[in-house]
Structures are given as C-alpha cells and as structure tokens.
C-alpha cells in the first residue's frame, strides 16, 4: 500500500521501520530536513520536507495516490488539520491521527466522524491502559490478548527461586501443572524461538501462550504472589499519569502522584478529585520515604527521563512488589534486562503496534493477520490468523508439516475450545491459529509459514 507518515518523531520512526519492512511504499513528511536525511539513509523510502498540513506539501508527497495517511507530528491540531486537508484532496483516503491532549479525548469519536478519520491514536492513553491492565492482573510483566480475549501471551521473568529455573521445555507442563506453550525466550538481549530440548535459565524472560482461564492456576503453581493491587504510587505527572490515575481510581485503587512542577500539580489536582497530588522532587530519597513509598503495593515511574525512571524502579524494587517503568528513548532493552525494572512500558512501541495492526487489517481482505502483537522487545511477532479453505495442509498433524525455521504454531482455537498444540494437533477450516515468528521474516498470510 502507499502510506504517508506525517511527522518523523519517535513514533514516526518506529512506524517507518516496521512498515518499510513489510513492503509498503512509504513517504515521510517532516519539517526538519536533518531527521529526514537520517530516515532516508536508513530505509528505502521517499521524504518530503515541509509542513504536513499544507496542500503543497501533501501534494508533493503524492496524496492523490495514497491509501493511508498517518499523522503523528507532535501537535494534535496539526495532525487533525493534516488529515482534514488530505481528505479534501483525496476523499478515499484512510487517515490516522495522533491526538493526545486529554481535553480532546472525550470527543475523539465525534472527531472521527466529523473529520473522516479512520482512527485516533493516543499513545499516552494506550500506555496508561496497558499499565492498568498489568496492575489489575499482577505477576506478569506484559500481556497480549488474542482470539477475542480467550488466549493470552504473557511475559514472565525466571528468577533463581522459580520452579521453572533449569527445566527443559518439554517437561515444563509437569512442573507447572497446566498446559502452556513457551513461544519465545529473551536471553541476554537475544530472542530465541525455542524447541522442546531447550532449558530455561535464570534471568530469562519467557513468553507463554495460555488460555486466559488457566492464567490464575499458572501463577499459583509458579508461586508468584498475586495479591490484588490496592494502592499505587505514580512518579511524574504527565499525560500518562493523568489517564492512568483516572483508570485506577475508577477501579477502586488509591493513587498518589508525585510531580515537581507546581502548575502541573495544580492542574492534576483539579482534574482528578480522588487522587492525592504531592508537589516535590521524587529523585530524593527522603521525599519518597516521607510519602510512604514502601507502604504502596505498586510503583509506576513515569517521569520524562528514562534514566530517572530506571533509577526509581531500582530503588523501589526492594520494598514494593509491582513495579512498572516507562522507557521512551532507549531502543533495545538488552541493556535493561539485567536491571530489576519490573514491567517495562514503551509508549511509542505500543502506539506504533496499534497503527501497524490497523494497516494489516486494511489488507485483511487477502487473508492477512487478524491481530498482531510484537513481543520480546519487538524481536518476535505473534499473529492471529483465520483458517480458510485456501489454507494448505488442512487436517495434517503438525508433526508431519514442515514449517519454516523460527516459526511456531502457538495456539489453535477450534470454535469455543482452545488447544495448546502438540505434534498430533491438526488445523481445520474455521479455526483460529496464533503463529509466533522471530523478527527475521514477516508472515503476511497463514500459508507463508509452510516450507
């Protein structure tokens, strides 16, 4: 497809990377020629320099021929104007705008209708939703849902004391007492799509596929304490903090926000009535102790500095069970793996995943994936496909099918029943399958997995 990305910031860049790899024709617009130079040297794309909300610039980017416009510049108003202008030139265009100001969120649906937007993305709100999902279901570092929420891929860290430590994968079901499938392991910054012979080691981050209803059992058998989160300390008072606090308060969780900037404190306090807002510098130890950091059962560090977030997480990890750390800029989390940061959230990755899912859905007529989540720090990908009559190897047991390297069938859903597959499982028409691959190849259609 012909896609135009307006705004080459953090999300723009990570979108460019993903969509160019999937073989789309990309044109990137930005006002700063320096960033365009970088992006053009790294990817096979075209660049246009200029204000993305002007007709001239959009026409230079060949908006008439484009299928999709993604406006992700740093200003909401520019993004909206950009989409509206583009629509006036090309009425058949799909458009996605990033709108993140809380003042606009309530009218997002209305704006979609009025301005012909296909989708509004709000990275901060997505991040907040992700964090609150993690806090409501503590114990997992990350959760992605498939098949209408009935299957999940969850992330766990193997600690020294964990019953999983040192166990061969083929013997895992016996140890943890329920049937799950390990679809990816991140070890020392590298992603492995494991076979039954691999063993788990301390420090591994494992990604498990499991039906949603066994997750509770899984945690219990692993000895992970899953006390419900009742209180949350949020450090930093940005947009994510606002959305998160609103979410948590409505779920009955007590929230305290520490923020340095007086004006932000005032605005948060006026917007969020049930929340305790404290003005102060969270990087000082005395401040954290005086606010009773160790009394909270979760800490979320959301300041604008990655380094400070990591430091805060490490400082709190001794006394608080559930820790969530926001990381914006540091790209590969290989260096962060050794640190006790709890769940790591990358807002830009979440938002670009959301957009990539939309792009794939646009192509879905040709049997592309229904849902796609990138897992293992974007080094692997889990995609959900519907099995149709055109799928090859229907009714053949998996052990007799030759799959491509680094491809794993992680789950098969036959109607209402969810099966974690083994060698005897078969795929039949009407099923839904989840396929995991490492980053080396893009699976566009289900038939691509067969050799």
């Amino acid at each position: 497809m012909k896609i135009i990305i307006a705004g080459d910031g953090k999300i723009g860049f990570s979108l460019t990377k993903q969509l160019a790899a999937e073989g789309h024709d990309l044109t990137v617009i930005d006002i700063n020629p320096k960033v365009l130079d970088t992006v053009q040297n790294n990817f096979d794309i075209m660049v246009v320099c200029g204000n993305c909300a002007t007709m001239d610039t959009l026409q230079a980017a060949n908006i008439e021929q484009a299928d999709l416009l993604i406006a992700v510049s740093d200003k909401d108003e520019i993004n909206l104007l950009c989409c509206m202008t583009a629509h006036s030139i090309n009425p058949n265009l799909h458009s996605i705008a990033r709108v993140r100001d809380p003042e606009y969120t309530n009218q997002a649906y209305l704006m979609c209708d009025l301005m012909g937007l296909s989708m509004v993305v709000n990275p901060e709100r997505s991040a907040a939703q992700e964090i609150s999902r993690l806090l409501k279901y503590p114990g997992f570092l990350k959760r992605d849902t498939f098949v209408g929420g009935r299957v999940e891929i969850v992330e766990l860290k193997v600690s020294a004391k964990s019953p999983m430590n040192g166990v061969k994968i083929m013997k895992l079901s016996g140890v943890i007492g329920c049937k799950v499938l390990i679809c990816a392991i991140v070890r020392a910054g590298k992603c492995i799509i494991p076979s039954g012979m691999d063993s788990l080691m301390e420090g591994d981050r494992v990604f498990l596929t499991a039906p949603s209803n066994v997750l509770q059992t899984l945690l219990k058998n692993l000895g992970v304490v899953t006390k419900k989160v009742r209180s949350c300390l949020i450090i930093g008072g940005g947009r994510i903090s606002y959305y998160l606090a609103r979410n948590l308060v409505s779920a009955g969780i007590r929230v305290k926000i520490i923020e340095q900037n007086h004006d932000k404190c005032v605005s948060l306090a006026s917007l969020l009535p049930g929340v305790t807002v404290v003005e102060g510098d969270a990087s000082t130890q005395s401040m954290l102790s005086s606010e009773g950091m160790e009394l909270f059962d979760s800490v979320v560090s959301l300041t604008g500095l990655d380094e400070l977030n990591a430091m805060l997480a490490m400082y709190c990890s001794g006394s608080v069970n559930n820790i969530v750390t926001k990381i914006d800029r540091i790209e590969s989390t290989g260096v962060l793996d050794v640190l006790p940061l709890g769940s790591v959230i990358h807002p830009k990755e979440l938002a670009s995943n959301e957009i990539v899912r939309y792009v794939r859905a646009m192509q879905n007529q040709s049997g592309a994936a229904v849902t796609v989540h990138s897992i293992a720090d974007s080094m692997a990908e889990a995609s959900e496909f519907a099995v149709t009559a055109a799928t090859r190897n229907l009714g053949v047991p998996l052990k007799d099918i030759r799959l491509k390297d680094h491809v794993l069938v992680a789950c098969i859903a036959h109607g209402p029943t969810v099966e974690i597959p083994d060698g005897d499982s078969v795929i039949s028409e009407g099923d839904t399958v989840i396929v995991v691959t490492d980053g080396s190849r893009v699976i566009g259609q289900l038939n691509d997995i067969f050799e």
Partner: protein
Amino acid sequence: MNVKIIGRMLSFIIAIEAVFMLPAMALNFADGETRSAFAFIVVIAGMLLLAGLTYLLCKGGSSAFYASEGFACVGLGWTLMSVFGCLPFVISGEIPNFVDAFFETVSGFTTTGASILPNVEVISRGMLYWRGFTHWLGGMGMLVFLLAVIPMADKTSGYTMHILRAESPGPSVDKLAPRMRKTARLLYGMYFFLSVANYVCLRFARMPAFDALCIMFASAGTGGFGVRADSLASYTPAAQIVTIIFPLLFGANFSIYYMLIIRKFRAVLRNEELRLYLAIFVLATAAIALNIRGYFATFGEVLRHAAFQVSTIMTTTGFSTTDSNLWPPFSKAILLCLMITGACAGSTGGGIKCARLLLYFKSLLRNVRQLLHPNRVEMVRVNGQVIPETVLKNTNAYLVAYMIISVASVLIISVDGFSVESNLSAVLACFNNIGPGFDAFGVTSNYAALSVLSKLVLSFDMLCGRLEIFPILALLTRSAWSRKV
C-alpha cells in the same frame, strides 16, 4: 569500510557486464569474426568465474552500508567495469595496446566518446556494438540498473540511497517513487522508451539498421561513438536532425519526463533548469549560425550545422556533421563554453550541469546584494524551493575541485608538446564527457598520439567527470580505507 558487501555488489556488477557482452559475441559469430568472438568468450567466462568466486568469498557478513561504502561501490565498480570492458579489445587484437583499449572503454562507459582509433571502419561489428553499448549502459548508470533488477535482500535497508546519490549526476538527488527499485525501474523505463523512439526515428531517416543501433546507443548515453570515420556527416539530413533532437531530450533532467507522466505540466513549464537549458541552446545556435553564415550554401544548412554542433556539445555527446575545427574563433569559443556548462542534472549528459549553473548565478547575485545590505538574510530558491545551505556549500566545493583537476590535467598533458588550444580543449572534452576537442584533437583526428601518462590522466578525468568527482576522490583518500576509527 564493510569490504564484504562491497565485494558482493562488485560481483553483481561484473556478472551483469559479462551478460551484456553476449550479444556482441553472437554478432561476431554471425559475421564470422571468430577471433573476436573467442576473445569475448574468454572474457565472459573469466568474468563470470571471477564474479562467482568473489560472491562466494564475500557471502554472509554484515549488511552495514553507509555513505563510504556507497562511494566505494560506485568508484570501484566503474573502474572495474572499464578494466574488464576493455579486455575483449585487447585479447582480440583489434586494439592491441591495453592503455589504448582502457582509454576507449572508459570513454565508452563515461559516455565521453573520445577515441584513439585512427579508422573506426576496420573494427568488427561485434566490437562496435560493445563499444556503443558501453555508452548506453554508462548513460543511466550500471548501479542504477543493478538497483532495478537485483532484489536487495534486506528490504528495510535504505542504503540504496547512498548509491543513487553517488552515481546520479546533479547537486541533489531525489527519488521519483518511495521504493528505490521502482525509482530505478522508472528511470530505466523512460530511458528505454526514449531509446526505442530514437531508433525508430533513425530508421525512418533511412539509416542502416546496425548504424542506427550504434548511433542510438551513443545519443541515448550522450556518448558520441559513431561507426563511420566521418561521424554523422555522410548520413541523410533527416538523420542528422533526429540526432539534434534526441541528445537534447536525453540531456534534459529525467524527472521532467516523470512529471509529464504524472501530468504535472505546469511544473514542467516552470522548471527553471529546463528553461535555462533550452535558452542556452537557442541563443548559442543563433550566435553560431550568424557567425558561420558564409560557410554553407543555404541558410537551412547553416542552421542545421549550428544546431547540430550546439546540441551535440552542450549535451556532451560529441558527434559531428562537419569539421568545426575550421569554424571562426567566436564559434569555437562558444562551443568551448558549452562544453563546460553541459546538460541538465539527472540526465545522461556531463559537464557542470545547468542546475549547478543556476545555483552559481543565484548565490553570486545573493552575495552581491549582501555586500550592499550586510545584514540581509536571503535564501537561494530554485523552482520556488529554498535550497539548503549545505547543497550550496557542496556545489561550491564541486567547482573548486573541478577547477583544480582541470588545471592540473592541462599541465600534465602539456608535457606532450601539443598546442595550448589542443590541450585545453582535450581536457575539457574528456572531463566534461564530450569527446572531440579542437586543433590536434578535433573531430577529424583522435587521441592516439598522446603519451601513456596523458591517456591515463584523461581516463581519470573522464571517470571524475561522469561520477562528478567526489566518488573518485573519496576512493583516493586514506580515511576511506583505514581500519582505524
């Protein structure tokens, strides 16, 4: 520097060049020129073997590709292409001297058209075909062709931009389409279409089929190798008029044709470079026609010869219909100036290019205005677009490098003892990829009389001219090859 990926690219270049030699070989076989045909077989087999070995040696390894690799690929690729391309001439004995054959092949690939052959009519048809085809390939560029046909393994990589930048002429290079492969295919598609049109027109002008093919190759690449000793003088006037028009078309920026395809006619009409290019053509033709009006019987003939010479020199093709060496000094001076200005950026032609000329004039005017109003802030604009200062800086640096290389080359060549006019015109004609110069190196003579050193210097000039100096200079710097940081 990532040697392995450069090795892989070079192996592709050698292999494709070998494949392109096949028609020439077949032609020699058909004509019963077995010795030349066998020379091709030996060279093709050797090149394919070498390409295969290089590829195997360089298989795997990282795919890191940055600006320095781009320059190295283009600089080394063109040098190797010329070395291998000249081997059939040497082995068949048609041009026995290696340096002569190398000069001839460099002259072909760089679309110069400067020759060392005293009599082109004794050369076999297969060799003439190959000599002409080097023009066609060199015109749009071997690496651009590579980008169009070879699916690059790593789809995410944007490294192809470094290659396009290093190989395509002009102060700044833009893609026509988001994908490099599509851009390269568009460029070659338009090039191919125009070439076919040119061939058909030449045939209608009653040129023999083989001659038309070779002349088409030379016009398309704006090269200038003919197949007759008198270049184009003995063909019909219609064929000469076709060869006024088509080099002019090939000398225009190919993005103009793309704009025509996507129906942006207004942008084409307002294109400042195109206007300058056509204005230079019309004015120079008028001036020369006035100057030489006594030389030919009818005014039509005067105009045809003037327009032919202006078109062929400013597009850096270098054909001839008459001996311009005998023209009055004013006409020769105009032709000398046209040699330097050259064709448009993004075309198959050489020279400084009209796009740069525009930038020089505009930034010069800006500097003068700034002398009068020292605090004035002013941007240089072309086609309404602001030109970034870095582009202006690079364009100025280009002129300095251009001057230094020209002067140094003239100095070295002067050792051979030819007249000042000969030496100056020879360097300008080679450096700007035109072909024939004046006086001792005029259209009726050739470059065979020069010493080996002078031929190598001129070969270097031709490569520098075609690749716009910097890729070749970059190869010569120590930091390009240093393993240290």
